[in-house]
């Protein structure tokens, strides 16, 4: 691909919430927002490269007074867009603004995070926001917007998953929602209180979510976290029982395909491979040629070559019986835990999950 298919863009570092697992908290404090004209010029550059879609995120996107001017800039440059928001600033007046021009037509989806079925649970990780978030969500659903909801599973809501599913699928009337879990990154590591699931809680969430998926006809999804792990675990154990030693395309550090389709931009204009690895700066919009960054920046080249590194070559994986089923996991965790992106992510390791790994244990969360 001569350019990324999509670009994730943090258009602001301002946020009206202080969520306890925010991976972007440090950047929000340290970096400054770009003015409207810099973003509009960047959208024109993306349009010239025939980028298909952008996801606008933050910070909280609705804190930007020029949000709809930016959206119109996306539309004028022949792209579609999605929004990630906490939902608390969504009002009837905001909804009315989507009715102008092609703002509704070009909208892929709006994603809101809901972390509990009741305020006292949701607000433990997303303080003082449940009522406003649910009000915003209901407004959007009732107005027929393409909505997604993300539930991030923590120690606070692991016992509330059934109620959350009832709230979102039956009461609010969503078609589906997705789940993940809080990981050690961003502000999570500095919280006095540990919100990351214990191994027992993760297994509990896997069982409960698997049951809920069956009960709700597959209307709960996941690309990471306990539900994704439950599905992966089932596949691996079934394959092992059949005497298989791996899945096609596995066995290398291929846990992320983003470097073939996406780039991301921080709210100060820094170009990065992904918002979760914002320390790997590739350039600055309006200064560096975006297409050249995509095609030939040494970090992008390295990330693409990462796919060819066999797990067999890694000390942590050489003797692992699950090697042929594994992708090494998300590169962010590899960088976070090992300070080396060309390693495995222990948080995505099946042997770690099973408690059989000699190098890392989830019980203490410390390297051995």
């Amino acid at each position, binding site marked *: *691909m*001569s*350019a990324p298919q999509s670009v994730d863009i943090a258009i602001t570092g301002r946020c009206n919430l202080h969520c306890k697992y925010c991976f972007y908290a440090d950047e929000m404090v340290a970096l400054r927002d770009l003015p409207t004209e810099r973003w509009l010029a960047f959208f024109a550059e993306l*349009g010239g*490269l*025939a980028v*298909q*879609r952008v996801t606008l995120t933050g910070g909280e996107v609705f804190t930007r007074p020029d949000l709809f001017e930016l959206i119109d800039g996306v*539309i004028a440059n*022949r*792209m*579609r867009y999605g929004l990630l928001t906490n939902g608390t600033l969504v009002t009837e007046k905001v909804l009315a603004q989507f009715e102008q021009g*092609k703002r509704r*037509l*070009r909208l*892929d989806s709006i994603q809101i995070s809901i972390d509990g079925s009741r305020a006292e649970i949701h607000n433990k990780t997303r303080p003082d926001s449940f009522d406003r978030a649910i009000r915003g969500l209901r407004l959007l659903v009732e107005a027929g917007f393409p909505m997604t909801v993300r539930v991030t599973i923590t120690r606070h809501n692991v016992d509330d998953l059934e109620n959350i599913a009832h709230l979102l699928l039956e009461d609010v009337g969503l078609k589906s929602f997705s789940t993940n879990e809080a990981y050690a990154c961003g502000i999570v590591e500095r919280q006095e209180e540990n919100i990351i699931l214990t191994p027992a809680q993760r297994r509990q969430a896997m069982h409960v979510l698997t049951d809920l998926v069956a009960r709700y006809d597959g209307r709960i999804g996941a690309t990471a976290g306990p539900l994704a792990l439950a599905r992966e675990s089932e596949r691996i154990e079934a394959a092992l029982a059949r005497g298989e030693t791996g899945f096609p395309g596995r066995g290398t550090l291929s846990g992320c395909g983003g470097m073939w389709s996406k780039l991301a931009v921080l709210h100060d204009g820094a170009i990065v491979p992904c918002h979760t690895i914002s320390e790997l700066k590739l350039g600055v919009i309006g200064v560096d040629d975006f297409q050249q960054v995509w095609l030939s920046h040494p970090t992008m080249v390295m990330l693409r070559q990462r796919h060819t590194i066999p797990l067999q070559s890694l000390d942590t994986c050489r003797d692992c019986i699950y090697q042929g089923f594994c992708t090494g996991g998300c590169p962010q965790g590899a960088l976070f835990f090992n300070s080396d992106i060309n390693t495995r992510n222990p948080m995505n390791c099946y042997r770690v999950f099973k408690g059989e790994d000699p190098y890392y244990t989830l019980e203490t969360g410390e390297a051995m």
Partner: protein
Amino acid sequence: MNTTEPTLYVVNPDVSCREEGPDGALLFNPDTDAVLVINTTGLLIWEALREPRDKAGVVTALESRCNNVPEDSVAGDVDEFMEQLIAKGFLGIYQGTVQF
């Protein structure tokens, strides 16, 4: 005598076209989210339709860019390809302005 003017077609200005070297190009209609991968011949047709043309005009434009092309089969292939583009909203009918 019937003097009906031939229908003129032109690319939808909202559709993006990303050229991918020798492989051809990727068309994307952001209004419908439709994507179409086209080969290098398709790309020549797309380029020809950046200005309004009827189907015969597209065939003529294509023949001027390609050598030794059998006219009959080209006309059929162009017609089929353009109907696909029209169905997906990539092409519009030109009547002073573009109609979809």
